[in-house]
């Protein structure tokens, strides 16, 4: 298991070829670094001393070559190190993530997702980088040290011994200082944590502080922590700097002894001058590897403790194997036999006590009871999400706790209480459960992914069809490659107007050249068309000189700028300090990433007058005003005067642009498809004015009617399948998420279905539809265990089990239990009625 591996494991498993190659380069590099010293000596003694120019050139050339080779190799070493480090880092990340995913559900109740995120994102970094350095840095630096030291001994053993004699002292002293520095560092972390919680406390209770004017008390308490932190930080820094200073001191002492002893020897003529120069260079070159070793020592300390803590945190054993190693996953029939099942959590609380039940393949069981009675827990024990602590659960005679995850996923479909929908399209989410069954085996053994028809069938069954159709209708078609579709839609548009136009007039604002469109943007109101050139698209309009000139001519520039200022100021006043969230921006002309720009604009312009704004600010404000849709953006109103001015401007613009730039716009005409608008808006030839379900229902009915006539229904649904549901599926409603979760399990078609209050967020009609489906299509096909919260849906089940306090009180067919007038009767008719 990954968490048991020491850091050295990652070094051992990194690419050995590369590590070996690295060692070879290091060896060459060290030679290339010592070589210039020898050249130095020869340059001084032989070339300069004997005044030989050709020798000087030769030695200098060799010197230069060695330096170049050394630099090149140094870069190669760093490159290989980086590769090894990053490669290890990504291995640790992948394997740790794979491990974390398999940890029992219980683990995640105490582990915050923030902790998991920071572990995988930041905390593993130092460990990974260490592995890159683990061989290269110590080997490189120790060898370099030895090489230089060896060279020094070669020059003069006595001098070498004297100057290197200092290092053992450093090796002895530094770790002791480091230990103290570590202690101080730990204290710093603790006090910083106290300090933050103190700040948090004061800020939360700021009302009380103001109310009591207790500034002195709070400053005092806070001051105490700051003072402690002050002292600790000084100590900590002193140790850190002390280590550095000590290191430096010893380093600088070296030349001192060299000069004293070496100088004396040179004067005596027992040591040549060139050798002394080389000696000094060699000594100075000792410093770099030595410093790198020291740094490595610190990185090593940080990384090992960090890595240790990290792995300790995730050191939990997965409860079940992921997949069988010696056989294919089971193909089960779906008979379930639960005997004396019990489940206790820490503290000895028994959530399930001696539960017994038997289901034949295809039988359906409803679990009912008060919340906290253990019905969900029972379902989760049977589906291996919880590991039961006593008794047994057998599926086709095989113990569930002994099965692998894969055995279960091949045979069971689970709809959780609050199902999770992942970012992606509807289609991807529908296929999620089926796709999970794919693996690395041969293609012909793979389960088949559901076809489009199957997916459409199942979304019809669960009642998601209209929703997906709606997503399709709200799609903006890209470009004109969809010509044949566009032609059909234009045909629908005419039919729609003839047959439903009047009836739906309350819910649709039709495009009308003579009227201001309250549900279209100011830009659309002015141009009354969709742009065919990039420079006229809404994003570019405020920068388009031609358009700006037109605004001036139509006397619209200033009033629109004023509108822009009003919009920005109001919006910032409402939401300025909140972290951006999609919901807050749905009905705003400002997008989340523009928030900062507009905050800056509003601060800059302050109370200044329109003519004083910089050109940049003017354009930003215009851009905002051009996006303004009075019917949607409710933080500002469109003054009547401005509205009339815009309407007049429209006629001027249409006139002008047709003369100056014919073809720049496709105007809103009944005969043309409008590519800047959604399919729905194109069919309606207008905009819906309400997204209330009542209004949507009416529009849907008529649209579906027409779509069927044009044979476009499935085509639009197919487009809708590519709708992206957003992170956590938050662009879907709770009901839509539940339907999607049920649909994906139905598509998987497993022999066992576990549904845990799977229809709780659905409206009555959808709930009934799914219940009917379970009773007709799935009865006899899949064994079903359904945790039920509404008692009016349980009549069709083969068996009903009533639970209370972790026990099954009674179990049997619905009518039998009702006739018995026991607990179920009480639940259905109310306790008082039974009394």
């Amino acid at each position, binding site marked *: 298991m990954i968490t048991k591996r020491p850091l050295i494991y990652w070094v051992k498993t990194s690419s050995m070829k590369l590590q070996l190659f690295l060692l070879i380069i290091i060896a060459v590099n060290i030679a290339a670094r010592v070589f210039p010293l020898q050249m130095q000596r020869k340059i001084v003694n032989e070339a300069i001393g004997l005044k030989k120019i050709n020798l000087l050139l030769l030695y200098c050339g060799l010197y230069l070559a060695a330096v170049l080779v050394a630099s090149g190799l140094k870069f190669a070493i760093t490159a290989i190190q980086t590769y090894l480090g990053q490669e290890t880092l990504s291995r640790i990340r992948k394997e740790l993530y794979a491990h974390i995913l398999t940890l029992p559900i219980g683990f995640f109740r105490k582990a915050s997702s923030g902790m998991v995120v920071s572990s995988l994102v930041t905390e593993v970094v130092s460990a990974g980088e260490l592995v890159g350095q683990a061989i290269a840095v110590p080997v490189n630096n120790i060898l370099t040290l030895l090489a230089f030291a060896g060279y020094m001994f070669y020059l003069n053993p006595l001098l070498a011994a004297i100057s290197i004699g200092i290092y053992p002292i450093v090796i002895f002293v530094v770790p002791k200082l480091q230990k103290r520095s570590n202690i101080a560092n730990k204290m710093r972390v603790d006090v910083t944590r106290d300090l933050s919680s103190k700040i948090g406390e004061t800020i939360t209770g700021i009302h009380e502080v103001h109310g009591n004017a207790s500034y002195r008390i709070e400053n005092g308490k806070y001051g105490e922590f700051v003072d402690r932190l002050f002292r600790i930080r000084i100590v900590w820094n002193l140790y850190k700097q002390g280590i550095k200073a000590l290191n430096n001191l010893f380093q600088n002492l070296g030349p001192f002894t060299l000069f004293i002893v070496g100088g004396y020897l040179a004067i005596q003529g027992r040591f040549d001058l060139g050798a002394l120069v080389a000696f000094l260079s060699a000594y100075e070159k000792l410093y770099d590897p030595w410093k790198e070793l020291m740094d490595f020592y610190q990185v090593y300390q940080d990384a090992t403790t960090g890595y240790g803590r990290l792995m300790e945190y995730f050191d939990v054993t997965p409860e079940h194997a992921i997949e069988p190693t010696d056989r294919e996953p089971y193909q089960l029939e779906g008979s379930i036999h639960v005997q004396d099942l019990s489940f206790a959590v820490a503290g000895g609380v028994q959530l399930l006590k001696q539960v017994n039940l038997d289901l034949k393949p295809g039988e359906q069981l409803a679990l009912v009871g008060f919340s906290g009675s253990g019905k969900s827990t029972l379902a989760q024990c049977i589906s291996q999400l919880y590991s039961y602590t006593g008794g047994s659960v057998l599926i086709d005679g095989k113990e569930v706790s002994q099965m692998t995850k894969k055995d279960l996923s091949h045979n069971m479909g689970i709809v959780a209480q609050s199902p999770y929908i992942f970012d992606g399209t509807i289609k991807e989410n529908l296929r999620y459960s089926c796709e999970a069954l794919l693996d690395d085996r041969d293609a012909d053994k793979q389960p088949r992914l559901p076809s489009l028809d199957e997916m459409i069938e199942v979304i019809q069954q669960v009642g998601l069809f209209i929703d997906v159709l709606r997503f399709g209708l709200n799609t903006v078609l890209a470009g004109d490659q969809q010509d044949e579709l566009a032609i059909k839609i234009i045909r629908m548009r005419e039919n729609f107007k003839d047959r439903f136009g009047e009836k739906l007039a*309350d819910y649709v604002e039709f495009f009308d050249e003579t009227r201001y469109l309250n549900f279209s943007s100011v830009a659309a109101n002015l141009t009354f068309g969709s742009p065919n050139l990039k420079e006229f698209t809404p994003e570019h309009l405020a920068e388009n000189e031609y358009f700006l000139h037109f605004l001036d001519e139509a006397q619209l520039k200033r009033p629109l700028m004023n509108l822009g*200022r*009003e919009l920005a*100021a*109001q919006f910032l*006043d*409402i*939401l300025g*300090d*909140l*972290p951006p*969230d999609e*919901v*807050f921006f749905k*009905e705003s002309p400002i997008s989340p990433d523009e928030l900062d720009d507009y905050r800056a604009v509003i601060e800059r312009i302050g109370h200044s007058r329109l003519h004083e704004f910089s050109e940049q600010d003017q354009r930003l404000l215009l851009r905002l005003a051009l996006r303004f849709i009075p019917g949607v953006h*409710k*933080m*500002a*109103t469109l*003054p009547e005067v401005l509205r009339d001015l815009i309407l007049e401007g429209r006629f001027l613009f249409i006139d002008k642009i047709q003369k100056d730039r014919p073809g720049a716009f496709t105007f809103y005409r009944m005969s043309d498809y409008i590519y800047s608008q959604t399919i729905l808006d194109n069919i309606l030839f207008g905009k819906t004015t*309400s997204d*209330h379900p*009542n209004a949507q229902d009416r529009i849907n009915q008529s649209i579906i009617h027409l779509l069927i006539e044009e044979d476009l229904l499935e085509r639009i649904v197919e487009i809708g399948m590519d709708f992206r549901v957003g992170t956590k599926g938050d662009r879907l*409603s*709770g*009901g839509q998420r539940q339907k999607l979760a049920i649909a994906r399990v139905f598509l998987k078609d497993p022999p066992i279905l576990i549904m845990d209050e799977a229809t*709780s*967020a*659905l*409206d*009555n009609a959808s709930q009934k539809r799914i219940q009917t489906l379970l009773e007709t299509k799935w009865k006899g096909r899949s064994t079903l265990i359904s945790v039920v919260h509404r008692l009016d849906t349980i009549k069709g089940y083969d068996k009903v089990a009533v639970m209370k306090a972790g026990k099954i009180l009674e179990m049997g067919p619905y009518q039998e239990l009702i006739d018995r007038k026991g607990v179920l009767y009480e639940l259905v008719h109310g306790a008082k009625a039974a009394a």
Partner: protein
Amino acid sequence: MSSSMEPKQPLSEYQENLEILLQLPLFAGLPIEPLKVLAYLCKRETFKPGEMVFHEHEVDANAYYIIEGQGVLLSQTDGEVGYTEYGEREFIGSMSLFCDVKRLFTLKATTKMVCLTLSREKFQKVLERFPDISIKMVEAILTGIHAWEERLLREHGHACEGCRKRIGVSLV
């Protein structure tokens, strides 16, 4: 705010919403920052006479303030028996902001009805940013329930035998 520079300009829908929220007991005790966001997130809906605002037995995750018009509570299981009438300036459905509740009644518009609606989804987003407001709002709801039963007892407690047996909602 810049609107003060042009006094003739009518209030924006957002500003009107804010004024409404400030008058409602459920929101009156809240700080202005979350109220502004709530006012911004509220939505106006128009219902035609005879149209259903919400349906019996259906989950409805909205609260409503009636700006204009009238509606009546019905029970369809009892054959469209009418119960309470609701009219202008009344606020209903605050519980839906906090949890899934299936409506026990249908609300049918008897005239054209304009409502200010707030959905739970949007409300919950505000709650995430301003978690402290929930306590104040729960207090307001519970005080409302208490006052409601107190009034029922005072006005009808002696008259209706059946009601007395069922009294105790303020003890939930």
